C-alpha cells in the first residue's frame, strides 16, 4: 500500500489551508502521528473495556 501524501490527507479532511500554512500544519500533524503511534506501545491490555468516557469517583 502506498503512503498518502500530506496534500492528499489534507484534501480528505475537506479543509483548505492556505499554501503557506501547509509546512506548519504538517509539522503539527507529524507530532500528532508520533503521539498516536506511541499510544500503541503502552503496557495496556487490549482485552479491557474501551474507556471513551471520563469520570472521576466522587468522595
Amino acid at each position, binding site marked *: 500500500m502506498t503512503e498518502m501524501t500530506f496534500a492528499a490527507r489534507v484534501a480528505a479532511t475537506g479543509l*483548505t489551508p492556505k499554501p503557506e500554512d501547509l509546512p506548519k500544519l504538517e509539522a503539527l500533524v507529524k507530532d500528532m502521528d*508520533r503521539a*498516536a503511534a506511541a499510544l500503541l506501545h503502552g503496557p495496556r491490555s487490549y482485552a479491557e473495556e474501551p474507556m471513551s468516557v471520563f469520570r*472521576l469517583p*466522587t468522595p
Partner: protein
Amino acid sequence: MDLHYLTIAQAAALIRTGKLSPVELTRAFLDRIRALDAQLNAYLLPLEDTALADAKRAEAEIAAGNYKGPLHGIPIGLKDIYNTAGVRTTGHSAVFKDHVPTEDAFTVTLLRQAGAVILGKLSTWEFAIGGASFDLPWPPARNPWNTAQDPGGSSSGSGAAVASGLAMAAMGTDTGGSIRGPASWCGIAGLKPTYGYLSRRGILPLSFSLDHAGPMCWTVEDCALMMQVLAKHDPLDAASATVPPVDFVGALGGNLAGVRIGVPRHFFESDVTCEPDVLAAFNQSVTVFRALGASVQDVTLPHLGRFTDINSLITAAEAYAIHREWLQKTPELYGERGRLRMMAGAFVSAGDYINAQRERTRLVQEVASVMTGCDLLIMPTRQMVAPVLGGYDSSVGPSLTPPFNMTGYPALSLCNGFSATGLPISLQIAGRPFQDHIVLQAGDAFEKATAFRTARPALAATALAAE
C-alpha cells in the same frame, strides 16, 4: 490606601463593616483600567456602565442590611469565553466578533448572585488555544512585569489584569495549563479545580473532557473565597459533580504537620529541564514546606511526555469537533495559531482518540496509586519564566501542567520567587480529586510563610506614582 491592590479578603472586611464603598472601589478599578490598559491589553471590553450599576446595587443592598458575603461589591473580570447575557463574548476571535449570548455562564450567574461587580471581558488566546497572536481583531495581552514579555495563556488577560491591579480577581479556564500558565508568568495564584467541581456551562468549549473553569487571584486565600461561591453543582452540565459542600476558607490556616508531599522530580529534572532560577526557587520551596511541618519525598510518575502527548491528541480532536464547520467554511477568520492547532485535530483518527482516552484512564490509575502514599504533589508550574511576547509555542514539547487536566486532579499555581531578570517564578501544588481545600490550605500556608506577595509589577508602581 491603594484600593486596586487590596485582596478580596481585605476589601471584603472593609465593605462588610461599611468602611469601603463598592462604588468607590469599582471607580478606582475603572479609572485604573482607563489609565493603564493601553499598555497591557488585558481587556477586550471594559463594562463601565454596568459595573457601576452593579456596584451601586451592591452598596444599596449592604446599606439595607443584606450583605451577601465576601464577594459582595468585589470587582471581577471574565475571560472572554465566559458567556455574558446581552454582552459580546468573542473568544478573542473574528469568528465570534458579533456573538452576543442570551444567558450568563452558570459560574457568572453564581458570581452575580454573590454580589460581585463584573468589570469587563478579558483578553485570551483565540478560543483558548494557540498562543499570543498579532493577527486577531484585538492585540494580545502583555505581561505587567515587563510588557515585552508574554503573560502566558490562554487566560492571558486574566493573569495580566489581576497582577497589575486592573481586577481584584478574574475567571480563567484551563485545558492544558491555561489558568496555571498565566498565573505563573504573571506571579499570581490560579486554581484549576478538580474536573467537575465548577460548571462549564456557558463557557465557549475547547475540549469537552479537559476544560476546567477556575479562579485567578492575587492570593491563594482569595482563590478559596472564590471557590466558596463557584463550587456548586450544575444539573445542566453533565460533568458537574455532586459533592457535599466544603468550607474552602475554613480549611485555611494552621501548619502542615502530617501532610505528605510527593515530588515527581523526574518531571522537571529529566523529562524536561528547568531554568536554573526555577529549579533553585523550587528547592527553596521544599525547605519551606518542611519547615511548615510537611514531610517531602520524591515519587515516580509516568513520563511527563506521556501526559502531554495524550492531552494534545484529545484537545486537538475535541477542538476540531467543535470548530470543524467554521474551519471548513471560514478558515480566514481565524488567526494562524488557533487555525493550525485546531485543523491538526482533523488528522486524529477515531481509533487514536479512543485509545488516548483509554490510556488517559490508565494514567489516572497510576497517579492515584502513587497518591495513596502522599496527599499532595509539588513541582514548578512552568520550567521557564515568561519569554518574549509571541515567542512561546504551547504545542512544542512537554510541559508540567497537562498531567492534571488529564487526571482531572486539582492543581494550584502560586508565586515562589523571582528570576534574576525580575520575572515571577511559580510553584504548582496538586492534590487528590475533590481535595481542592487541602491544595489551597498548603498554598495559603506557603504564601503566609514567605514574602512573595509584597512585590507588584513595576508598571503598576510607575503608574501609581503618576496617579
